[in-house]
């Protein structure tokens, strides 16, 4: 593959790179333009279409941060972090417990349950959203509490992650947990002390996607969080759109950028795992 490049192939290769770079810039241009626009005075946003800002200002950020309904963006961020934390703990624990049972333990209903779990991956959320809503509203959990968003995660509803972990466990030699059980460890001990540490890569992938999906989620917060005090960043940002005429484009862009920052940071630090996770499981990302 990496034999000596002859002159024409070298030329073709740099042509290819030029094309890729151009295409990449075109793809990312809207994002970069929004980033730039968020740092310049609002009146200058449409002055030029380049990506190099002239006069820098943080005014949009200050104005945007203080412009949200109710508790403002400080509160929206805190709310979102709380929901993300609950979802993370829920998914990591409940999905790994289920995955261990599917991958390692024998039980009567295994085939049926496994098929149900796989079917769960395909189940469209909107189909079950209504009975779920009725259930949560009849127990008085709709409006201000985050529980309707977190409880499903505690109950291993993201079957996608269960499946991911089952696949991962199938690749781990059985000898390891059989050795543990010969040493007298019961299934719980084996799970906690042997399996869970071995599952680290799958747990990392789960963490990343749970974080990003929960962070970006809009539909379920829209249904369940009805007062501005309980808004997540998605809801807060959306409420800013309605009041855009008063708050202006600059602050709206600034807040859009800032809500993307945690996802970008995750992406930067966890790229390898993200790529691996998608490649192995075909997640939507």
């Amino acid at each position: 593959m990496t034999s000596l490049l002859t002159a024409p192939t070298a030329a073709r290769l740099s042509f290819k790179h030029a094309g890729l770079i151009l295409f990449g810039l075109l793809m990312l241009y809207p994002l970069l333009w929004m980033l730039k626009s968020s740092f310049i005075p609002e009146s200058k946003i449409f002055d030029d279409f380049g990506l190099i800002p002239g006069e820098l200002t943080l005014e949009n950020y200050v104005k945007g941060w203080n412009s949200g309904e109710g508790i403002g963006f400080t509160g929206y961020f805190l709310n979102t972090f709380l929901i993300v934390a609950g979802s993370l703990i829920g998914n990591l624990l409940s999905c790994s417990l289920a995955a261990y049972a599917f991958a390692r333990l024998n039980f009567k209903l295994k085939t049926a349950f496994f098929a149900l779990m796989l079917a769960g991956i395909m189940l469209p959320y909107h189909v079950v959203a209504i009975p779920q809503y009725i259930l949560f509203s009849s127990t008085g959990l709709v409006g201000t509490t985050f529980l309707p968003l977190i409880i499903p995660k505690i109950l291993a509803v993201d079957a996608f992650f269960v499946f991911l972990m089952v696949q991962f466990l199938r690749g781990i030699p059985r000898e390891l947990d059989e050795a543990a059980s010969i040493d007298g460890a019961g299934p719980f001990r084996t799970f906690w002390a042997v399996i869970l540490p071995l599952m680290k890569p799958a747990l990392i992938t789960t963490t990343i996607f749970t974080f990003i999906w929960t962070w970006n989620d809009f539909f379920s917060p829209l249904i369940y969080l009805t007062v501005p005090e309980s808004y997540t960043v998605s809801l807060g940002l959306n409420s800013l759109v309605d009041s855009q005429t008063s708050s202006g484009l600059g602050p709206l862009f600034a807040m859009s950028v800032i809500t993307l920052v945690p996802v970008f940071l995750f992406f930067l630090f966890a790229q390898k795992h993200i790529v691996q996770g998608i490649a192995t499981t075909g997640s939507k990302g």
Partner: protein
Amino acid sequence: MQPGKGATTRERPDSRPAPPPESLGFRSKSSVAAGPKKRTPRKKGISSAYVFLTPWMLGLVFITLGPLLASLYLSFTDYDLLSSPNWIGFENYRRMFTEDPRFLKSLAVTFTYVFVSVPLQLALALALALVLNKGIQGLALYRSAFYLPSLIGGSVAVAILWRQIFGGEGLVNELLATFGLEGMPGWISNPQTALGTLIILNVWTFGSPMIIFLAGLRQIPAELYEQGSIDGVGMFGRLRFITLPMLSPIIFFNLVLQVIGSFQAFTPAFVVSGGTGGPVDSTLFYTLYLYERGFINFEMGYASALGAVLLVIIGVLTALNFYASKRWVHYND
């Protein structure tokens, strides 16, 4: 940044890089049975399995399967959350197909969105994967850049950006104005073009199928190409007779995944249209309509019926995909 090659495979202890999509249960018989073959009679394991599965089983009852059945029941009722559900038989379904032009409109909008954007998105993903596959320098960087939009494409922030790009005084029109095309109407406020802007948004998120294609391309044995070059097969011949057939299970996998995912798109249409599906219902996605009937009007029975139809549509589309796949997907067993 990771130097591309090997990064995707290193952490899998079983040294099976990227299990092909049949592991998602597509050829499910083999994969369901692929669990532990040895039925070691461990009594402890039998009883404790259900303890491990307790959260999942509760989820099945209260969050997934239970609500699914409840939804089917509610779809035959008239229910507004205040009084108890009132059985009306097939009335919801009858109304839907005979008296509800907005339902039919939302179907048309969603089908257009899915059937235009998914093929474009997959074609772009495949093209880029083919270009990036040849051990190109800076692969990790390109891959990240192209993948980034997938990561945030469903966020409110990007939907807001799209509103601005295609708005009346948005980026596109301001750019056009510098070329002398002044006073263009907003792309999102024009019923002719509004859906198009959302289609562009979906195509823009071609990065995740691209990564799946890249993983698939790595699985194709190099010998096949060596054989091909001995036989004097040209570039297009290689694509036509080696790459595409070998990649067909992955293409199929991406197709199923993206069709299902796109059918459920919600956030972009909601934010870009301000929650209305407008202008004149031109971006009334199916999920948007379901949301409106269920969570704005609180017609829980009718919205459940909409949900049941959504389930049937997705089921039928998936089944059709599987059926058609027998004709063109080549499994290399």
